[in-house]
């Protein structure tokens, strides 16, 4: 049993190394073959993996405030993903240092010809963009350091230390929400700098939470900790994780549809362009797959109590949700690009996602404390609401 799991861990490491080598090679070829798209593919890959770490941070802060067996079960995994935030800050450098390769507002000659961009220049300019990125990562690294500190010195419930962690989590989750909202505007929404949507940041925020939870469920179900969790809390821990996944999926669909619905209803030229690009030219299939495979199918499957309580059946659903978040990021970023004659090269996005993902995965395994795991307290309070 143990050897099978060690075998699984070795295989995961091998796959990660293969992903780095093959993804890196394909990315290098893409650099030569499809240069104009390279930075956008890099942006996609970086945003996807950064989102997993940021979503994990949201969940840890949230769990500090709410408590519950679900969080105790996945907490070490979430902390591992949170500790990768500084690494994602390093991966941010190609984007933050070269905004003119991605964003038309960073091109002075373009801004000269565009009255709207001249008007938006006090916010959308290179220096302020870089300063803001530094502020976001500064905040996230501070919160990540606090989360790591909490991991090193676990506090018993309702101790002064526990209350202190809860206080910083309450303030932290608010600041974190603001940072994610502004970051979504800077890094994604400003790809089409004329367009704006108030709920855009919430859609990304919700997507991050779904994705971080989905990955934690997959890793937990495949790790030796699964049996520990089942022994301490029974199937309830997975039941709760499944219920949360269902709730987050519904929240994501709710806000994503709200944005579409309001823009569709208003039918204003400056607003509908965003959806015209994303619901035409082949991208409608990506949108349809998001509605079907990121919402409808997982939603129907997760209605089943038996499925949620069985890690072996819950994990594949979570994996589907995780992969579909990547499709969402591609669908958010790539249609924004003015390609002229050039065509979208899907494999370049996949190659860079695999290359960065392989590195992310190896460090995640390294940073995730494997033993000793935090004990699971499943008292009557934990059992009563289920």
């Amino acid at each position: 049993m143990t050897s099978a799991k060690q075998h699984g861990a070795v295989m995961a490491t091998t796959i990660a190394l293969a992903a780095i080598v093959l993804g890196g090679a394909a990315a290098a070829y893409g650099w030569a073959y499809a240069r104009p798209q390279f930075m956008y593919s890099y942006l996609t890959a970086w945003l996807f993996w950064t989102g997993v770490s940021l979503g994990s941070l949201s969940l840890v802060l949230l769990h500090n405030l709410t408590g519950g067996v679900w969080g105790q079960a996945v907490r070490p995994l979430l902390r591992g993903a949170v500790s990768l935030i500084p690494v994602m800050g390093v991966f941010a450098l190609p984007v933050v240092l070269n905004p003119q390769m991605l964003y038309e507002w960073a091109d002075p000659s373009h801004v000269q010809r565009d009255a709207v961009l001249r008007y938006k220049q006090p916010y959308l300019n290179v220096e302020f963009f870089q300063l803001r990125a530094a502020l976001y990562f500064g905040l996230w690294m501070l919160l990540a350091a606090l989360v790591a500190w909490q991991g090193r010195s676990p506090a018993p419930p309702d101790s002064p230390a526990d209350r202190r962690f809860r206080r910083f989590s309450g303030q932290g989750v608010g600041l974190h929400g603001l940072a994610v909202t502004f970051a979504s505007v800077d890094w994604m929404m400003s790809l089409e700098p004329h367009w704006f949507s108030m709920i855009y940041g919430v859609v990304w925020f919700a997507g991050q939470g779904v994705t971080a939870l989905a990955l934690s469920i997959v890793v937990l179900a495949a790790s030796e900790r699964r049996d520990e969790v089942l022994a301490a809390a029974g199937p309830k821990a997975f039941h709760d994780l499944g219920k949360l996944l269902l709730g987050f999926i519904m929240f994501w669909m709710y806000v994503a549809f709200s944005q579409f619905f309001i823009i569709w209803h208003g039918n204003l030229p400056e607003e509908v362009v965003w959806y015209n690009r994303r619901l035409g030219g082949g991208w409608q299939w990506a949108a349809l797959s998001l509605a079907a495979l990121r919402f409808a199918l997982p939603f129907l499957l997760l209605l089943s109590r038996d499925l949620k309580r069985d890690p072996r059946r819950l994990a594949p659903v979570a994996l589907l949700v995780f992969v579909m978040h990547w499709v969402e990021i591609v669908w958010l970023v790539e249609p924004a690009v003015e390609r002229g004659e050039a065509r979208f090269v899907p494999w370049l996005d996949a190659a860079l996602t695999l290359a960065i993902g392989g590195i992310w995965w190896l460090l995640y395994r390294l940073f995730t404390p494997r033993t000793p795991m935090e004990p699971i307290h499943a008292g009557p309070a934990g059992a009563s609401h289920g």
Partner: protein
Amino acid sequence: MIDQHAPPGGAAADLPEVYGVLGEFTSAEELIDAAHKVREAGYTRTDAFAPLPIRGLAEALGFHRTRLPLIVLLGGALGGVGGYFMQYWMMAVDYPMNIGGRPAHSWPSFIPVTFELTVLGAALAAVLGMLALNGLPRPHHPLFNAPRFSLASQHRFFICIEAADARFELENAREFLKSIGATQVTTVEY
């Protein structure tokens, strides 16, 4: 829903009709232990009463699934499908109107109402289905005839084997409850 009240009149009218036998226990551990034994003895129409929630009690007694989730699912599906086609029929068939130049069958504008009616259908099905399955509201229950049953909300634990059980035989059931450690056994009458 099974009517647990005795049929009025009839041949057995002069005999006291028995609802079941009630065994009293002094601790949660004893109750769980007894619940296991009751289940192992093959009784299926049973219930347990305790002043506090006890983990694993329902499983020990062999608590079976209800059909409520299926009822809720059907209620939600009915609400959603019905809500969508109600709008479709009104907006595209019965009384089409030009709203902002949109097609009569504009599905995005039907989604919010469809969503709400799905929730409404599921919620109503949950409440009404729950009431239909458990027989509430119910102002009186035969168990209240057992004098010490009120202690179930204080410091005593009870198991009831109902007369509706296929294996129920009054004296055997009483003896059985005593043999598994009940401090008192009461025959509950209607």
